């Protein structure tokens, strides 16, 4: 029977929404699902993880070296903790993508990146070429299977679990060659882009950072997260962590509204899994209309404020 170890991501004492999606992939593999929380003091995060339905057990590994969740510090601890598990899963965030290969190489295991479907405990689907092709891969079961989970492909696991929380200790030598300096976080009261049910994005056609206000206004009215195309980010209208697309964030909201975004392949790769796509663009030939469920051809500076007033 499978025994899956899920590595928890957290910040400021709160569990990341990515974890319950990773748990969904673990549940699809079957068997026991154990969530590991590496932290200075993981009690609060572990209590949240214990409530995710499908989780069998939560382990906390407390260590002062876990303050910033650096890959170099976590990898040797995970290598120790992974003994006896059939699978180790990481969320497909920058945290998981940075960390997983470091653990895989130490275990001499070829990693499965971006798991988008679980066909069996050893067979997985994953995207290649920015999602323009899907491969089915068979991974050797021994010594174990290690992968990252593509968040846009899995629904968050339900709440309502009551798993036991235990503390675990691992003996690992933690290197000091990597030091955290700082994190410039973009603070926002809006829903987080990757977990928002609704997302409104703006593109190059907004033409300035001031003009992005109409995007924020619509988003706030819809209680939506705000994204942007690569063109808008590169033009300096908005910060890089708002970028949606192949090289930015891959998202799967219920409703995605693309405003003044032409729909480069790069951008479309990031929104393929959105349930409903709305496109507002003055160019009727823009490729975004090929994938939009609802398209409106018009001047965004007139259409968007009108839409904000009517929703």
């Amino acid at each position, binding site marked *: 029977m499978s025994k899956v170890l899920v590595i928890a991501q957290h*910040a400021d004492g709160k569990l990341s929404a990515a974890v319950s999606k990773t748990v969904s992939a673990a549940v699809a593999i079957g068997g026991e699902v154990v969530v590991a929380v590496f932290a200075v003091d993981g009690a609060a995060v572990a209590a949240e993880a214990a409530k995710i339905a499908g989780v069998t057990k939560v382990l906390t590994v407390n260590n002062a070296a876990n303050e910033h969740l650096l*890959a170099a510090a976590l*990898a040797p601890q995970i290598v120790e903790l992974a003994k006896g598990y059939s699978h180790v899963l990481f969320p497909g*965030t*920058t*945290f998981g993508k*940075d*960390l997983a*290969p*470091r653990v*895989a*190489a*130490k275990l001499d*295991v*070829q*990693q499965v*990146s971006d798991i988008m479907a679980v066909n069996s405990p050893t067979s997985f689907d994953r*995207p*290649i*070429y920015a*999602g*323009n*092709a*899907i*491969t*089915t*891969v*068979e*991974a*050797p079961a021994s010594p174990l299977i290690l992968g990252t989970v593509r968040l846009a492909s899995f629904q968050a696991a339900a709440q309502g679990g009551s798993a036991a929380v235990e503390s675990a200790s691992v003996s690992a030598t933690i290197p000091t*060659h*990597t030091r*955290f*300096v*700082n994190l410039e*976080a*973009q603070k926002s009261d809006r829903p987080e882009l*990757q977990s928002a049910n609704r997302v409104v994005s703006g593109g190059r056609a907004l033409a300035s950072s001031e003009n992005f206000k109409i995007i924020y206004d619509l988003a706030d009215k819809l209680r939506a997260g705000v994204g942007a195309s*690569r063109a808008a980010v*590169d033009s300096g209208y908005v*910060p*890089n*962590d708002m970028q949606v697309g192949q*090289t930015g*964030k891959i998202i799967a909201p219920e409703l995605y509204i693309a405003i003044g975004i032409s729909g480069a392949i790069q951008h479309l790769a990031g929104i*393929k899994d959105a349930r*409903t796509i709305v496109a507002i663009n003055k160019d*009727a030939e823009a490729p975004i209309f*090929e*994938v*939009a*469920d*609802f*398209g*409106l*051809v018009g001047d965004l500076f007139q259409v968007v404020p*009108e*839409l904000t007033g*009517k*929703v």
Partner: protein
Amino acid sequence: MKALVSVKRAVDYNVRIQVKPDGSGVVTEGVKHSMNPFDEIAMEEAVRLKEKGKITEIIAITVGGAKNEETLRSALAFGADRAIHIKEEGEIQPLTAAKALAAAFKKEGAQVFFAGKQAIDDDANQTGQMVASLLDLPQATFASKVELDGNKATVTREVDAGLETLEVDLPAVITADLRLNEPRYLKLPDIMKAKKKPIDVQSFSSLGVTPGAGLKTTKTSAPPKRSKGIVVKTVDELVAALKGKGLL
């Protein structure tokens, strides 16, 4: 200070990917290939650091078949001083490539290993981290700013929460994200000069690497297509349509 820059030959980013009808893979024959764009950014960063006097020698390195020589020639045109070609045909998985790259890095005694954060063909995003892990070196992935200072590097990384800055001791592995720089256009005189620069041919066996079992691809398929929706004329129609689907 020596830098090793890993470059991979991949299907050009402008090519529309076609899945073979028999599900055995994607069409790569007769299709334009070029250097993986993230590796170009890594290459450009190494060249800029050399221009600033922080790096003294740049060695481009690739793992792959005979055709990868053209990718190394591009790297030499960018400004690499010499190149290493780990010549192996057929599919090479990231862990195997990382083992060979790590062996070469160690042999060269280089201080910085540069690579793109991922290749745009398999999108694995693994090799740089694996090289760091195999050699127990620090890693700074998804770099958007790199400063080398004596025996350490300060690297700003593009993470989901914003921009994270790490300080790492050298030697270290650094992988390039999109906004680290804009690679230069190659000029003809540099392309001509690159033809005369030396390429040292190595192999897995010369580096003491044995490919492991790895993943077996059983099928490749095209992603499900999104069908084109409807075009509405007015904001009122749009609002009505969204309400009709229960989205507002």
